[in-house]
């Protein structure tokens, strides 16, 4: 009788102990879950703010002013766009002439040049290359191959 009682007692206290442990483990996990959820929320909020800021900093006018200050790049002109087929092979003996032809300034357009006072925005309207600007073929102009996206 006493042995049976002892077995039950041990069993009951084991179960009691594990229920106690389980309860605190669950409590701990729930706390962690709540904390992680809070963290996710605040991260999402931060991402939202950063996205807005990124978009704000990427305002085209802002980028244009930065580019004109720090980069030696200009917007692509229609005549700078060449397909890969248009670029001569290096072995081609006439390659130099062909390249020179490619990068030569476009023939004068049959257009009345827009009045000078229209070019208010000098950062966005790239200056025309002077006619004598291409003594030697400038290969860098050919880097724009195909279609810029």
């Amino acid at each position, binding site marked *: 009788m006493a042995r049976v009682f002892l077995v039950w007692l041990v069993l009951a206290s084991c179960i009691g102990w594990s229920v106690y442990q389980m309860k605190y483990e669950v409590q701990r996990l*729930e706390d962690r879950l*709540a904390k992680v*959820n809070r963290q996710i929320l605040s991260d999402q909020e931060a991402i939202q703010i950063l996205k807005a800021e990124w*978009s704000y900093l990427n305002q*085209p006018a802002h980028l244009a002013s930065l580019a004109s200050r720090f980069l030696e790049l200009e917007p692509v002109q229609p005549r700078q766009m060449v397909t890969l087929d248009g670029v001569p092979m290096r072995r081609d003996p006439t390659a130099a002439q062909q390249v020179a032809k490619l990068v030569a300034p476009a023939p004068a357009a*049959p257009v009345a040049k827009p009045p000078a006072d229209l070019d208010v925005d000098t950062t966005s309207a790239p200056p025309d290359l002077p006619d004598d600007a291409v003594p030697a073929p400038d290969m860098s102009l050919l880097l724009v191959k195909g279609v810029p996206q």
Partner: protein
Amino acid sequence: MTDVPFATRPLVGTSLVPVSPPRSWLRRLWPFGAGASFAPAGGALDWLDGGAEARHPVEIGHNRLIVVGALFGLVFSTIAGRLVEITLLSPTEPHMSSVRRALPIERGEITDRNGVLLATSLGMISVYADPRKVLDPAHAAQQLARVLPDINEATIRARLSSGRSFVYVKRDLTPRQEYDVNRLGIPGVYFQREDRRLYPQGSIVSHVLGFSDVDNHGLAGVEKFMDERLRASESVQLSIDLRVQNIVRQELASAVETFTALGGAAVVMDAQTGELIALVSLPDFDPNEPGQAPADARFDRATLGVYEMGSSFKIFNTAMALDSGTTTLAGRFDATHPIPIGRFLISDYHAEKRWLSVPEIFMYSSNIGSVRMALEAGTPTQRAFLDRLHLFQPVKLELPELGKPHIPMPWRQINTMTIAFGHGISVSPIHVVAGVSAVINGGIYVPPTLVKREPGEVPPGERVLSPKTSESMRKLMRLVVEQGTGKNAAVPGYMVGGKTGTADKATKGGYNEKALLSDFVGAFPINDPKYVVFVMIDEPHGTKATYHFATAGWTAAPAAGRIISRIGPLLGVMPVDEASFAKAMAVDLHPGSARVAAQ
């Protein structure tokens, strides 16, 4: 009852005690003795152990224990059963109302076609007060005004003194201000999290986006049109390309400034899909602060404003005449003398004073020739054609601000004549763009849209004119840019074609020759049109550089040319060798004569 010792009372509550004596089959188990009267009435104490002398007390105690044990057993097994059911048989997620997994953004985002954020909502802290709980409104107002410099102390004091239960002190605090207000510790002043609509790109896309109020209701533009979708936290991707939009806006702004105009509108549309790549109206406003903009700046000239477009309507007039078959590219009309009509005289701006061929009429923008073409086709034909091009109804576009065209009622012969050169009918720029797009893209009217289409998605269109007419119109529009009034819109390599239009603005009782509306509608590359470009300048004034001309050829056309030369590379349009297309696009200016087609 009072003198009964507590311990001797029955263990079961009085509510369990039956009023009538137990039935016979229960009697053996019944712990309180047989035939006992339970009613306390009578004052006897025999209900307690009534008839106890008949049973042994041990037996009674035993029976009582069994009953109590059984009841406890029942309760515990119920609990156990329920426990098993909840945990093992039908387990459900723990209900945690306090846990929010998704960001509580009330309104969806708006992005451009490349995913650049145009409108978003950010959580902001607002401070409000319950005036009934504010002890000293004057002191509280003084303290609040000190940490929040942009509020008016007197206003706040008045608000705090009102008997209401909720007043805003200030919305959208900075974190610093929130900290400061919190530190004041004024009773009755509370914080609240609210969403604030933010437009990071400022005024670049203002008229398209519109704006929403502090309570996140869309009040204008896409914000209003798609209010339900946005409020369901769905995001919207527009067809607008921010880079193109910015270029178009810059060039239009520069033209408006140069010619000291009232404003302007410019549109770039994909001629095949109807997607609007850029939609600009100037002056515009900052959607972050819409209240500070004057009404004129909030007026969308591109979609809501309707204007008499002038000669650019000759695109529709010529297409109508060619498509109805009343004339061909070889047709000729007498433009020798102005046409008197009523008290007006229809004359030519670039008068040639001779018979002109159809291409010449279009190239020189001859009003006389156009009128004669329209008269030959007839009023019903003209009316039906313009109706087919959807010029009589507001355009179907994802905006609430859509102008209804002004069309003549009734449509007399004089209307037919004036409409031939774009007077007497007012449509919005978006009408012109959609119509011209149909004229040149092979004859299919595609409804314009502000929502991005999937790549390769072919929108349902309707055929409004024949492919042959469309091809003729492309040649004619190319001719205008090569040799006519649109030379200033030419961009080497991009095969621009278009038509200029200059209209006298209608005033009370007539037309004002000093107030012009100059517009240019073109497409590139015209041999295979990809994009339609429209530029309109409202009341431009000539400058020295334009020899004081304010007509479209000097104002709108150069702006369109600059726009095309800048957006062409961006949109991935490959320039072509224009000379190789010269023959294909050539038009015989003097049909029937021995002279070769002009190049």
